[in-house]
């Protein structure tokens, strides 16, 4: 495995030496150091490290300003604050700036190493999620349709666009919660919902309530099966599905999803078009610290 690359930002040469030794002994590669905002921008821009350790107090700047500068260069670089200062206000502000973790000085070698390894393991897991979730949910959709309606729907091209959507009439929303937080959404016309429930029930739904329940149940099966597959692929995901809420009406707009990663497709089924959108994000509570 490649070594994890670290840049140290600190205004004290003593601290830099101490941290650099600790990191090297723990098997990380220190690829640069900086002690001002300008140097931070230059070194991080050139070296593109995995991790930046960030001091809070520096002449003419502070750890927050430097963190923002690092994330402007690349939002995927993980910043760990290493500072003697530590109170609720600083931690709160650091979380808002998407800092990945916090260590109080004097830093402990084991603690620092554990924190970096946990952050990088999490990064790997998130990458795995991004790679597999769309194919898994697509498969879940196809399997469920095949089993329940003996038809083979055709998926349109996958789109990553995340914009406001005008509903076709019936929208099923399901929260997915585990290591990451996500949402599955199906959208279809009343006509499609009606035809689909006719097929599954082998008769006309008694009323619109029964039709809505049927669509909810079908969505629930797709979500449940897909999440089981995800959890089997990696049990760290630990996904569970919240039951569906179904929104329906003549005028319904679905806002842009607040998700980091999402994939959507229009699916041609025998019963009409169904739009599927699935996405995930890291959880805001995902804050690594050993304190």
């Amino acid at each position, binding site marked *: 495995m490649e070594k994890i690359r670290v840049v140290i930002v600190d205004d004290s040469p003593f601290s830099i030496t101490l941290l650099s030794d600790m990191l090297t002994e723990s098997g990380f590669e220190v690829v640069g150091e900086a002690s001002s905002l300008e140097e931070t921008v230059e070194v991080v821009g050139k070296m593109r490290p995995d991790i930046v350790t960030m001091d809070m107090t520096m002449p003419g700047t502070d750890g927050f300003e430097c963190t923002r500068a690092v994330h402007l260069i690349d939002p995927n670089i993980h910043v760990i604050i290493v500072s003697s200062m530590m109170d609720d206000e600083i931690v709160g502000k650091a979380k808002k700036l998407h800092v990945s973790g916090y260590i109080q000085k004097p830093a402990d070698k084991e603690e620092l190493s554990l924190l970096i390894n946990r952050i990088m393991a999490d990064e790997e897991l998130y990458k795995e999620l991004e790679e597999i979730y769309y194919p898994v949910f697509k498969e879940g959709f196809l399997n469920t349709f095949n089993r329940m309606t003996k038809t083979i729907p055709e998926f349109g091209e996958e789109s990553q666009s995340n914009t*406001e959507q005008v*509903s076709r009439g019936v*929208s099923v*929303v*399901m*929260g*997915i*919660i*585990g290591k990451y*937080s*996500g*949402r599955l*959404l199906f959208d279809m016309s009343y006509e499609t919902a009606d035809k689909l429930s006719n097929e599954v029930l082998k008769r006309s739904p008694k009323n619109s*309530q029964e039709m*809505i*329940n049927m669509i*909810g149940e079908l969505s629930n099966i797709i979500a449940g099966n897909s999440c089981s597959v995800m959890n089997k692929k990696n049990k760290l995901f630990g996904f*569970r*599905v*919240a*039951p*569906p*809420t*179904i*929104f*329906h*009406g*003549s*005028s*319904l*707009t*679905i*806002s*842009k*999803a*607040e*998700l980091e990663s999402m994939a959507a497709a229009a699916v041609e089924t025998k019963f009409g078009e169904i739009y599927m959108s699935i996405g995930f*994000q890291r959880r*805001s*509570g995902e804050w690594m610290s050993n304190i």
Partner: protein
Amino acid sequence: MDVKHINPFLDSVVNVMPQLGISDIKKGKLTIKDKTINSPGVLINVGIVGDLRGNVIYGTTIESAKGIASTMMMGMPVNELDEMAQSAISELTNMLTANACMGFSEQNINIDISTPTLMYGDFTATASSDKVLCVELKINDLPFEINIAIDRVS
């Protein structure tokens, strides 16, 4: 459905709203609805899993959503329920539900919440529970309701 599930949500309103500049909170009626929730204009769905399972569906009118968003953005005028305003309202419901989670954990009930989904227009929502508890509130004199559709996992 359990009346004990209401208090963490009421507490979260009292805890969270003032931090966002909304200090005038009046409790209104508490009603029990069936599965159907008529949208007052805007509904925001937050999923719940854990010891309890279901959804919390926050409701408000488009006008009051704009008012609440404006207050949250330090009084910036909000003329349309645009992306920024939608994001502010979604964030509010996220904070309210996350805070309620902490309230539940004090009762030894552990739950996790999903990302909010905001819908607006003229529509109806069908909840996952047969009975939905609805708490009506007035915040800065604007209508805001919390529909609680959660059940204990047996």
